[in-house]
């Protein structure tokens, strides 16, 4: 197989890992919304943790994306 073709296939496979971010971020914000339904007054305090959780979950997806870029262009 030519290296170029292998790179393209590898990059495509690596991008599958980004699906985890969709699940994780959806879970975090879903939990935040449900929590706001139960106790709206605490929502602003919790929002900092929501952003932290979002960034940590996004990081895993970014690891996968960076690997895809490195495979494609490295």
């Amino acid at each position, binding site marked *: 197989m030519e290296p170029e073709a292998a790179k393209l296939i590898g990059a495509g496979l690596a991008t599958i890992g980004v699906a985890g971010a969709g699940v994780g971020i959806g879970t975090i914000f879903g939990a935040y919304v449900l929590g706001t339904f139960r106790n709206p007054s605490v929502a602003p305090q919790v929002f*900092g943790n929501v*952003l*932290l959780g979002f960034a940590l979950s996004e990081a895993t997806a*970014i690891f996968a994306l960076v690997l895809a*870029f490195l495979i494609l262009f*490295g």
Partner: protein
Amino acid sequence: MAEHTNGAGGEGNTGEAAHGAEAGEAAHHGPIDQFEIDRLIEMKIGGLDVSLTNSSVWMLIVIVAASVFMLVGMRHRALVPGRGQSMAEMAYELVANMVRDNVGSEGRRYFPFIFSLFMFILFANVLGLIPLSFTVTSHIIVTFALAGLIFVGVTVLGFVRHGIKFFTFFLPPGVPIFLAPLLVPIELISYFVRPVSLSVRLAANMFAGHTMLAVFGGFVIAMGVFGIAPLIFIVAIYGLEAIVAVLQAYVFAVLTCLYISDALHMHQH
């Protein structure tokens, strides 16, 4: 996005011709070229290469910008703040609240460090959004220097504070003893992964964002008339990148606060 034109290559060519050590010079233009390091002024101390590079210049710009932001903002010291002073005070409050909430009252002595860290990463990320600039934090060596320093510092802090009892950090209280052989290695591994994840998170976010912008920039040119669609996408992604720039600085600082808190009070919350 014109990163992959010879804008950076023009300055760096004299250095590259002289050294040839920049052997990674890509024969083809690509979205990765924007991360190339170009030596601007060659300098050597002993055998150590301390050249002024585009990365160093941008780090200097970041420091000057952050200092001007705070110094000029606080110049008037009015009781009722104007715009500049408000912004400087908001930055201070954000970090001060973060340190107090995550480390506790004894975290005050670490506030200057956390504040400098946060402002450096924030300005580095945001200034990297300027087209044709260089994002300092997109290189793993820069973020690993920060994260490695924090990891070593926090570990030393833990040993100074708790002595040999710091090792009980890896066996949380209230855990049945038969779980210990399973739990302690896991805790150890996740402790040592901290500098890696901290550094890679920031570098990867910056790297991926800018690479994506360059890739879609290539699409705009390649698609001719229909390039309007990737162009709109670039505008949207730019907004996301601005959010990510600020958010990643915040997350880096919060995690540093949490690690310091772990070292100071192990597992007692």
